[in-house]
């Protein structure tokens, strides 16, 4: 108690402030509330309610986690950037080689496919999975019988690990008839008396064929992504002021018009978050592809290339770091977008 800056003066100052007619606005930071009326401009005395001990505690509260964050995330992040300019093999000397590793990445036969696949992943999530999630959320919003049941069904994949999701979908995608569900089903369809004029796809190598396995994995990833988006969007929808909708309905708007002209614009914060999450999930794609075939032959992704090169027996650390930097540069776009938006919101 002895080290309080404001001790007995506090009540007096409060009284001063109120008698001086200073506005006690609850939104004004507490410091200003207690500022004395100006007697000698320009100096304004501010009193803080924080003792020195408090400040220390606060510094520790933020400082220690910050230190860990910097050491275990940001330091390695910058170290990756640094290592990308070396040809280090995980042991021995670290030689600075400039952009040599980046040149190797550029001519790496699996780099271009990886970029394309990451782009396809993003495009799929953005154009198919996320809109589907929004659609489901819109449908589940409002009075739908059994809405809770549907919600549970769509949310379930979100709580499953991607490793498990990969396993589950492999049971469906196994190529031999009698093992995998999809091919067995197609085979059974083909053997029905009424033969549909469709090509026989019952021997499709869903996970092995480089032309289609990316899409097979995307379906598995969407299984989870749709539920994720649905949760977020549904919550946002439920928090939209119903009066807005009623007003639109009174004005004679159809439900589609109501959604696009009234609800959607109002959901701006959610929309931003959805966009950012979609982008980040696309860049984070790793687990499913790794589980299926480690990320090769149609499933190359930047993330898998990093680990296959730098964290395997091969240990091409410099090279892998260069790929990681490419991934980082691409990721910066959604991250910075989000941070800027968030900062603007905070400053408002």
């Amino acid at each position, binding site marked *: 108690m002895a080290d309080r800056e404001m001790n007995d003066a506090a009540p007096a100052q409060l009284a001063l402030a109120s008698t001086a007619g200073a506005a006690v606005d609850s939104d004004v930071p507490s410091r200003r509330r207690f500022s004395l009326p100006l007697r000698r401009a320009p100096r304004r005395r501010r009193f803080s309610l924080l003792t020195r001990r408090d400040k220390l505690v606060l510094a520790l509260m933020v400082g220690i986690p910050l230190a860990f*964050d910097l050491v275990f995330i940001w330091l390695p992040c910058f170290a990756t950037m640094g290592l990308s300019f070396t040809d280090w093999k995980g042991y021995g000397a670290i030689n600075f080689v400039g952009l040599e590793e980046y040149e190797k990445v550029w001519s790496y036969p699996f780099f271009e496919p990886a970029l394309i696949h990451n782009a396809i992943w993003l495009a799929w999530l953005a154009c198919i999975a996320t809109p589907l999630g929004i659609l489901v959320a819109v449908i589940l919003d409002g009075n739908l019988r059994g809405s809770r049941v549907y919600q549970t069904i769509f949310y379930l994949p979100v709580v499953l690990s991607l490793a498990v999701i990969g396993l589950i979908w492999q049971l469906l995608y196994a190529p031999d008839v009698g093992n995998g569900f999809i091919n067995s089903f197609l085979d059974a369809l083909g053997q029905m008396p009424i033969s549909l004029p469709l090509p026989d796809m019952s021997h499709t190598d869903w996970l092995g064929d480089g032309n289609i396995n990316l899409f097979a994995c995307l379906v598995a990833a969407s299984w989870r992504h*749709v539920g994720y988006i649905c949760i977020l969007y549904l919550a946002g929808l439920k928090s939209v002021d119903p009066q807005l909708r009623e007003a639109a309905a009174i004005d004679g708007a159809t439900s589609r018009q109501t959604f696009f002209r009234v609800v959607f614009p109002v959901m701006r914060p959610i929309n931003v978050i959805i966009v950012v999450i979609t982008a980040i999930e696309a*860049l984070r794609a790793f687990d499913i592809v790794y589980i299926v075939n480690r990320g090769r032959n149609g499933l190359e992704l930047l993330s898998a290339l990093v680990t296959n090169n730098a964290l395997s027996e091969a240990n091409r650390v410099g090279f892998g770091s260069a790929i990681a930097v490419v991934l980082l540069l691409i990721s910066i776009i959604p991250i910075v977008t989000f941070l800027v938006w968030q900062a603007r919101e905070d400053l408002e």
Partner: protein
Amino acid sequence: MTRTPRKAARAAETAVPHRRRRHRHVGTYAFIILMAILWIFPLIWTIYASLRTNQDTTLHGYFSLPSGLTLDNYIDAWNGAEIPRAYLNTLVITIPSVIVALLVSSMVAFALTRFKWRFNIPLLMIFVAGNLLPQQVFIIPLSKMFLWSGFFVPAPLSDTGLLFNQLFGIILINVIFQMGFCIFVLSNYMKTLPKELVEAAQVDGAGVFRIWAGVIMPLCRPALAAMATLEFTFIYNDFFWALFLMKDGDRRPITSFLQNLNGMYYSDYSLLAAGAFLAVIPTLIVFFLLQRYFVSGLTLGSVKG
């Protein structure tokens, strides 16, 4: 204009009588029912496959009506694949991680939102961005750090002095990595708490730590409950850290342990299905019991007050 979670809940409750009953087309119902069936099907199929007998599937394949159902696959997976051990590892990793992550994050969120400082926003951004980075961007130096950390990790936490291949190491990186998200959500939540509370407590002479523990934390209970549910799921489901920061098979948590299962029981789909299902049971339990917390946790971050 969005509302705080509490207001939104109240609005949703009262919305029904006020909202005009919208006519739901048959088409909408048909669509959503079809979608729901498609969505639940993979899980149903997995359970079905896990209940098949080896004989049955060898003779008739998996796409067949069962000639007898059995729990043998679960028993085999449980015994043969050392699943109890993996469960234990997972619990040892997940529960402390969740607790520490939430404690630390709430402290940081408290400090950054309740006290005005020039660097609040940049700091917040540093934390949040740390969680938005793809893990592959910094795993390489991180794994090296873990391998060379041999100078400061005391005995009970590590049996080799390194962070590598230690449960403690996994706990550490999980806590740090999840901090960003937790801080983000909790700070959004704390901003909705009235400022007067803190000030009143300060005027009463409480130190910041006491304020945090006695005033803020109890008020954040809904958010903490939600975050706990969410973080439990995230950390439980994490596959990446243990894959590259651990080597011993018997120390791995259950998700990366599934890789083991995959390797050992290749093409025995029934056993794999049983193992996969055993692996997800804890998250399913948490989900079904605490679904509303799970949902509100995800939305706390996005639905701002």
